[in-house]
């Protein structure tokens, strides 16, 4: 019956992990007001997380816009609905792909760098040094990074969508030859600023919280060895991605179920 006991132990360990994570999150929230006063620290983090991710986000957004336009065209033209290409790409990006793909890219680029940074700080005893100097490392190190991520993510997501729509415009109007006027006017009449764009922004804010928190937690709780840090960065990407996709399903169901 050893495997039963092992299963039980694993399950308890998982719950313990979630509990620990939840407490960590609450602890982080509690020091946020204190951290908000140090705007300089937050600005540095927004730069490290947001500005440094611009290239990959913009490049991916453009590529996704191109590809979506091409693929959707082949599907729509069979129903004579090629004119709606702009609308289809717009809604796909603004409602779903913008927030989700940005979050996945964020987890890979910014998330892993945060995890590694915090993990190495912990390994080099910098966190312990701060604690022994009577400075709360959560307020000084973690909270600014958390706020930086939460601010950067919606900006990156909306830029992804914007660049994607432009990419689609290039393909649709430039390559395929769809009427430019129709391309924009159909979007303007059917895409709702609150329901579609607004909900997309809310999603990306939620994903920002998730991805940044997971990255910081994994870095903070990692074992202070090279293997530990490597393992932690992998876990950051996997857990962030799964959480984002799961949360996306829940949010989509909540936001877009009623027409």
């Amino acid at each position, binding site marked *: 019956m050893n495997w039963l006991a092992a299963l039980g132990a694993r399950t308890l360990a998982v719950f313990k992990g979630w509990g620990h994570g939840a407490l960590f999150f609450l602890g982080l929230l509690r020091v946020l007001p204190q951290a908000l006063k140090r705007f*300089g620290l937050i*600005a*540095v983090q*927004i*730069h490290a997380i*947001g*500005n440094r991710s*611009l290239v990959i986000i913009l490049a991916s957004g453009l590529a996704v816009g191109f590809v979506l336009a091409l693929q959707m065209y082949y599907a729509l033209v069979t129903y004579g609905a090629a004119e709606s290409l*702009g609308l289809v790409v*717009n809604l796909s990006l*603004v409602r779903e792909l913008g927030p989700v793909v940005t979050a996945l890219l964020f987890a890979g680029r910014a998330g892993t760098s945060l995890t590694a940074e915090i993990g190495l700080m912990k390994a080099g005893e910098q966190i312990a040094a701060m604690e022994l100097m009577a400075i709360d490392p959560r307020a000084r190190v973690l909270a600014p990074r958390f706020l930086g991520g939460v*601010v*950067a993510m*919606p*900006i*990156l997501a*909306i*830029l992804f*969508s*914007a*660049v994607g*729509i432009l990419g689609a415009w290039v393909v649709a109007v430039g390559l395929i030859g769809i009427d430019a006027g129709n391309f*924009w006017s159909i*979007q*303007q*009449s*059917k*895409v*709702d*600023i609150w329901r*579609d*764009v607004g909900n997309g*922004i809310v999603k990306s804010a939620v994903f920002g919280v998730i991805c940044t928190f997971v990255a910081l937690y994994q870095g903070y709780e990692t074992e202070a060895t090279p293997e530990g840090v490597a393992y932690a960065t992998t876990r950051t990407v996997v857990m962030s991605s799964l959480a984002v996709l799961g949360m996306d399903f829940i949010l989509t169901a909540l936001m877009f179920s009623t*027409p």
Partner: protein
Amino acid sequence: MGKKGIETLVGLFVLLGLAGFSFVALKAANLASFGSTDTYTLTARFDNIGGLKVRAPVRSAGVAVGRVTSIGLDGKTFQGVVTLEVDRIYQFPKDSSAKILTSGLLGDQYLGLEPGGDDKNLAAGDTIKQTQSAVVLENLIGQFLFSKAADAGSGASDPAGGKK
């Protein structure tokens, strides 16, 4: 340490985000026509509102002049009560009629306003008296089948009829 430099870059980043958002909002969404211009409220009652949704446009001669703001059911008369907001620049006569129309063959439904001939105009809070309910597909098919059956019946009772 370049602190000023970093803060400038962050400022640019946020500005870029706002630019992206404005682009999407204005060029690719309905913010341009959103406008919080001055509007006045009108009510209209229908036997059947069909597929009319909140935020559906109100059009007159095909031009968007307002939006549907809420839809409810009158508990006493069991009629659908539609509240709409119309731009203040457009004034309609008191005997104007409201119809629920479909854009295109199978598109979204909107509220069409047809002007009447009264000297006085509808004021804020007024109710549009003349309304035409939405066309319900099932009823239409039913009518069609009924009239077809009626034709067949009358045709049969006149076999030597003077059908040219």
